[in-house]
């Protein structure tokens, strides 16, 4: 009985994951677009920063500083997109097909999250590789593997948040609001583009209450070997955030309505 229930739960999660993968595979332009943006940031922003700014010690700005931040940004964008895509499923009707199925909605949400986080990790990984190809050095292979783990955990957190938000929004107009008022501030207040050690106090509060900050810091620690926030704290925060958000997302999705 327990085994059958577990089996069914796994089937549900796998089915939803499979759908996300099929869709992802078919939207190659989306994949290219989502990698292109961070790469342009890395190349152009990196070139601009290193020609104008220097670090406190007087050495020129190191472009590799941007890499973890841009990976974090890509993971955030595609995780949020993955969660918020429920709005599209609602708009185009497919949500009804899922909600009428005799399966637990919590596992449906979980499957959607696992699918979304897979696409987020693929994109993060591609940026990681491209950055390496253009000359950014990572400290160790173990560090890279740990960074992939960080992508997964923080991706789950943001996708849970995306699902929770999308379950409450019933129009695609709301999507732009989410992107402008949630995603952009999260990126800009995360230390993806600048060091967080010497910020004004009001901004410090915002930066330190932003879960993405801890994700980016953990990536920076594992890829470059330096971080401002202790790695144990970063990891603790992203894990707690992931569990809290997937719980919230799952619960909110269970109560979502279609008309």
């Amino acid at each position, binding site marked *: 009985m327990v085994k059958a229930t577990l089996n069914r739960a796994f089937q549900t999660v796998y089915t939803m994951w499979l759908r996300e993968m*099929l869709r992802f595979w078919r939207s190659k332009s989306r994949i290219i677009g989502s990698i292109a943006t961070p790469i342009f940031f890395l190349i152009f922003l990196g070139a601009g920063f290193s020609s104008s700014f220097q670090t406190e010690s007087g050495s020129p700005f190191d472009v590799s500083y941007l890499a973890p931040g841009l990976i974090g940004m890509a993971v955030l964008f595609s995780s949020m997109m993955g969660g918020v895509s429920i709005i599209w*499923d609602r708009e185009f009707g497919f949500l009804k*097909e899922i909600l009428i199925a005799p399966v637990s909605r919590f596992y449906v949400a979980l499957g959607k999250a696992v699918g979304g986080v897979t696409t987020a990790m693929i994109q993060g990984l591609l940026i990681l590789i491209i950055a390496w190809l253009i000359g950014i050095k990572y400290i160790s292979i173990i560090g890279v593997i740990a960074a992939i783990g960080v992508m997964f955990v923080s991706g789950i957190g943001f996708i849970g948040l995306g699902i929770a938000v999308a379950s409450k929004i019933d129009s695609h107009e709301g999507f732009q609001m989410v992107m402008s008022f949630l995603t952009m501030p999260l990126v800009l207040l995360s230390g993806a583009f600048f060091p967080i050690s010497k910020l004004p106090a009001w901004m410090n509060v915002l930066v330190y209450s932003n879960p993405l900050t801890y994700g980016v810091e953990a990536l920076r620690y594992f890829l470059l070997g330096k971080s401002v926030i202790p790695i144990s704290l970063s990891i603790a925060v992203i894990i707690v955030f992931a569990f809290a958000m997937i719980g919230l997302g799952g619960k909110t999705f269970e109560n979502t309505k279609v008309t």
Partner: protein
Amino acid sequence: MLHAIETMEITKKFESITAVNNVSISVKPGELFGLLGPNGAGKTTLISMLSTMIEPTEGRATVWGFDVEREAPRVRESIGIVFQDTTLDDRLTGRESLDLHGRLYGLDTKTRKMRIQDVLSLVELSDRADALVKTYSGGMMRRLEIARGLMHHPRVLFLDEPTLGLDPQTRLHIWEYIKTLNKAEGVTIVLTTHYMEEADHLCDRIAIIDHGEIVALDTPEALKDMLGGDVIILELEKPEDKSRLCEIYKKNGTAKIVSEKNGEIFITVKNGEHQIPHILYLASNAGVSILAVSLRKPTLDDVFLHHTGRAIRDRAATEVEQVGYKIRARRK
């Protein structure tokens, strides 16, 4: 089991509007049951309650013996549903749509493969199965949705306006599929429609619904018979003869209901085509000359008119708006 579906004084209120009011119906296993009514009559709301998408405000309902509120998961396993608006993911192929559906309903790999072939050939989509849904026409999408609704061998299949917005030829095709699967697969079907021809052509029994209430329920034939039979219309050469002729028919006992309007005589009789010779004979005996005779079989629209004082057609304009919405929804 006695009933495939049974509702007991089921009611749904949306704030101040009562969409479904005290509806008690029962559908037999294997039956093809129709809910006929104009747009906004409450058909979709009733189906939504039966398919556990929304909860009734009052009353109870069971589907295949399971209570729609307390045993919702069991109800969901027992039903298939084709919604009014498309619920397909257009970035998947037809085969993938069916496969994912089969997985969600817990079918194993072998069963899924076989079943996909069966349902695809039933709706004649086998050759387009591996094309993306977004390349399908409206009729093909509807057929794929019917196939998907059947994937998991549901006991009861709900079809909400299955031919809305489709061209007449596709409509005839869909009718064929619906008849076939009702007979061949033995699945109980409940369909909603505001096309009286559709209800008349397909359904074993029809519930006519208006303003959330059932106004009549019977077989299409019985519903039409209730009106007293066919109507024979006589056009006279000399309108002044009409009252004399009416008297003759009434006295003679040929027909119970005789009326006149705009110089024409309307005679309601059973078996109209057999009565015409006799009626003409009586007229010529009386020396009344008749210009034209026509026979009209009653339609479900007449039945609807009889019960509600309005024609279903009066409300048909809104259908154009709905189709417009569907087209917009497809453009992503």
